[in-house]
């Protein structure tokens, strides 16, 4: 049972990346699983499985080429592509299978002599393979606080918690009533209610070792933690493994990186978080992001916006609507102020060329005809109002302006996001 599960994901991934057709069978992202293959501990059974699969694939390819030979060598584009893709995937698989040998060899040689612990490697991997579709293996940037720490491998003790253990709301449980607590100290406070024997200073004192896991006999050794997610930089099997300092780090890292972001900001309804503290931090500042780019990204600081614009081609600062038309914008702004950020985004005018050109084409003609009469009239009367536009045909421009704004607003969600980067870049 275990063997199959071990091999299965790799197999699926291999198919997905090679044929490109039966992607739907598997939710795994191609990249993430290739990483998984690379980083996994060397396992003869996996290796064997991979090798046999490659053999099978080569046989398939042979058959295909034979078939083409039978048709007098008429090679169609589609078939050629298929063969090329297959060959490429075989090569990739070969390299990755061979490459998986290297780190595990290193790991074995360095960690084996020491007293490093691998508490539940098999289970952890399994769990990881199941939660692969949670996906964000790219978010390696987070939790790099201890990046500078360069402990030599083997100089510290590595612990790896299970997924359930990490995600459990409580870690300390009362042995009598079963109530769970987040903190050890709270549990001890709770225990006082169960009898006088829990009220002694010795019982209330902080236990000498925090962890109750077996094998923590060497108190001198520094403890570091590994993420159970295979392929993660924080996983001990990763080539450039960066250990996590505390359990809290493990928890936050695992939630942020490998879990769904289930907490949505109640103000902007767009930003999502997996750690509730992050949400609270965000909510404090949500709505203050007044610096907006044409791509829809908001920034709390102007210099960040300008850095972003300097970096990407075609992105421009978006001018808030209130700036373009004071009176109209002020009223609309007042109406929508309660709804927060998403409305603000829509209310920005980006003056994209397309919309501008459209507005122009449609309104330019009548303007000339109307104008001829009204323009000359505009200077004659003495009763001239400065605030007014004089005799100038105001409605035309107002219309065009209104159109412009509406079209720009309509565009902004479409333009928004990652898509526009590729659209506009040169």
């Amino acid at each position: 049972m275990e063997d199959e599960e071990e091999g299965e994901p790799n197999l699926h991934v291999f198919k997905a990346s090679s044929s490109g057709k039966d992607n739907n069978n598997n939710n795994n992202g191609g990249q993430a699983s290739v990483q998984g293959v690379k980083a996994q501990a060397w396992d003869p059974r996996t290796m064997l499985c991979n090798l046999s699969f490659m053999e099978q694939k080569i046989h398939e390819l042979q058959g295909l080429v034979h078939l083409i030979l039978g048709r007098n060598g008429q090679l169609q584009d589609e078939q050629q592509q298929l063969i090329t893709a297959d060959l490429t995937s075989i090569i990739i698989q070969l390299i990755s299978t061979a490459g998986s040998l290297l780190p595990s060899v290193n790991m074995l040689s360095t960690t084996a002599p020491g007293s490093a612990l691998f508490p539940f490697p098999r289970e952890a991997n399994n769990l990881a393979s199941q939660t692969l579709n949670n996906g964000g293996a790219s978010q390696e940037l987070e939790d790099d606080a201890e990046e500078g720490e360069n402990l030599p491998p083997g100089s510290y003790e590595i612990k790896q918690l299970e997924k359930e253990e990490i995600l459990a709301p409580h870690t300390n449980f009362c042995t009598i009533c079963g109530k769970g607590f987040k903190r050890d100290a709270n549990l001890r406070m709770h225990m006082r209610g169960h009898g006088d024997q829990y009220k002694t200073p010795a019982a209330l004192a902080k236990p000498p070792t925090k962890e109750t896991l077996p094998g923590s006999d060497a108190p001198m050794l520094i403890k570091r933690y590994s993420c159970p997610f295979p392929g993660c930089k924080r996983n001990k099997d990763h080539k450039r493994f960066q250990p996590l300092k505390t359990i809290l780090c493990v928890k936050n890292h695992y939630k942020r990186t490998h879990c769904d972001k289930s907490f949505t900001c109640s103000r902007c309804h767009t930003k999502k978080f997996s750690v509730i503290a992050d949400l609270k931090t965000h909510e404090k500042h949500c709505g203050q992001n007044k610096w907006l780019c044409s791509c829809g990204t908001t920034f709390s600081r102007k210099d960040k916006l300008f850095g972003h614009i300097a970096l990407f081609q075609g992105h421009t600062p978006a001018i808030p609507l209130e700036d373009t038309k004071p009176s109209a914008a002020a009223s609309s702004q007042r109406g929508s102020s309660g709804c927060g950020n998403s409305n603000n985004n829509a209310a920005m005018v980006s003056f994209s060329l397309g919309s501008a050109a459209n507005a122009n084409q449609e309104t330019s003609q009548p303007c000339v005809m109307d104008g001829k009469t009204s323009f000359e009239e505009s200077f004659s009367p003495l009763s001239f109002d400065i605030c007014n536009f004089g005799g100038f045909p105001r409605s035309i421009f107002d219309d065009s302006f209104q159109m412009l704004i509406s079209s720009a607003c309509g565009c902004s969600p479409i333009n928004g996001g990652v898509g526009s980067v590729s659209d506009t870049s040169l």
Partner: protein
Amino acid sequence: MKKAKQIQDMISKPFDLLSEELVFIILDLVAQNPSDLKSFSLTCKWFYQVEARHRRSLKPLRAEYLPRILTRYRNTADLDLSFCPRVTDYALSVVGCLSGPTLRSVDLSRSFSFSAAGLLRLAVKCVSLVEIDLSNATEMRDAAAAVVAEAKSLERLKLGRCKKLTDMGIGCIAVGCRKLKRVSLKWCVGVGDLGVGLLAVKCKDIRSLDLSYLPITGKCLHDVLKLQHLEELLLQGCFGVDDDSLKSLTHHCNSLKNLDASSCQNLTQRGLTSLLSGAGCLERLDLAHSSSVISLDFASSLNKVSSALQSIRLDGCAVTCDGLKAIGTLCISLREVSLSKCVTVTDEGLSCLVMKLKDLRKLDITCCRKLTGVSITQVASSCPLLVSLKMESCSLVSRDAFWLIGHKCRLLEELDFTDNEIDDEGLKSISSCRSLSSLKLGICLNITDRGLSYIGMGCSNLRELDLYRSVGITDVGISSIAQGCCHLETINISYCKDITDKSLVSLSKCSMLQTFESRGCPHITCQGLAAIAVRCKRLSKLDLKKCPFINDSGLLTLAHFSQGLKQISVSETGVTDVGLVSLANIGCLQNIAAVNTRGLSPSGVAAALVGCGGLRKVKLHASLRSLLPSSLINHMEARGCSFLWKDYNNHNNSNTLQAELDPKYWKLQLEEDIEL
């Protein structure tokens, strides 16, 4: 038979032989004088059409006529709207529709009452727009700047004094107009480091960047000085640019030719050294009104740029003798030196400076009051190629020195001897400078008609002559000038109390005359003015203040003949309503000053104001402000006319005028005022 008919045709239509190309060449030559062009186009229908096709640049007087003008001139490439104060969005959309594809440059620097919508028309319709001047659009906001960013081919952009613009607007322009070459952001006080930095990052072709009076620090200069083609960088009055922010600056901006760091109060030698360290090819350096003392140490910071430096301006700086000496020995290729208002300059310093500057062309030592004939003698003997010498108020310079200037520097074109001790002998020697075109002899009390007659005989190329308060001059001197200098364009004979109509009649021979200032000449009358008005067709500026004998008949002649008049002052004259209203006949008239003109009634002024359609500035007595209907004032302001209300009271009697005409009394009073 047929041939005969052809010949007949040819005689009847002689211009058919001319090809359009030939006419274009003729027009190129005619185009120097607008009135000639007008006569040409009125010759016949074909000429009218050809002229319309030929013209590329337009400077209309009224925005109302834009539709008609642009329909006639279809090939308009340069449109200068600086005479049209009120340019509405409609006018801009007319411009966009009628000459969209051909238009290359638009000047809106003096216009207002257009908005982002109008600019959008312009930006979208004029696809080949290369230059736009939006200076003084003080109400312009970021939204309008975002619209300007739609003009993708823009290369030259001026946004001077657009005070409501922020980094966001400049950011939009930086992203939109990638081809920008020359950008002026002078006085855009809302733009900071971020906007300028982005501009430098996005627009790699920038050659000239004016950042004067911006609240920037040295931070954005790190990006700016990375520009590969930057030639001109103006940082006038950037108080935020200090030594600390320039400390880490390392650049190799070898393209930089012109650097203006004047009035940068917080920039001292240390910051300047790092600013100049990479600019090895710098040619012009402006350090006017900087806070640091120009000493020996300071001169050492010029080490890196000394080889190519051609021009240096140190106006108003504290200059030491050693510093000038060091500059003189380091930068031997200097062609222009300006030490205007450097009160600490001594004879020794200037002599050491010019000693080795054989190539010096321009020297400005205005108000260096310690200088005497010694250093001027040194200048004259060391710099034979001198073209321009400005030495206003160097009153210690002896008369002999002027003789030497004329003797040694024969190439002089521009001379400013205002408030100096020059005498007729000096003028005689200067008259040997054949190419002299500008001569200022204001408050030179030692010169007489004899000296002027030398100038009249020798300097036939003279264009500008200033005789302000040079009271030794009479009609004889002016007539000799008028006879000899037929190219004269500008003359100032203010407060020359002996001038009469005879001078004006003789000056009317100078048909190129454009500016005529005769303020405080008590003897000139309307007859003299009539002579000028009739014969000087190009007259555009006229100052008749404090000429009590000028009255309505003079203005009536002006209104009839001087159709090019743009500016007139009739303060404290005998002009009444009739004369002022008659000025409405002059279409180009932009500035009127009529303070303390007793014959004027409020209704007369009102009628004149309504009549003169192109007025931009009116100077009136403050008492009229309440007497004129407020609706009229509002109307005028909406038309783009601004009012200056003067509330000084004129003790209008002959005594004060007499007192003012006495130069000694006047100078005494001026000194008293300064001391106060």
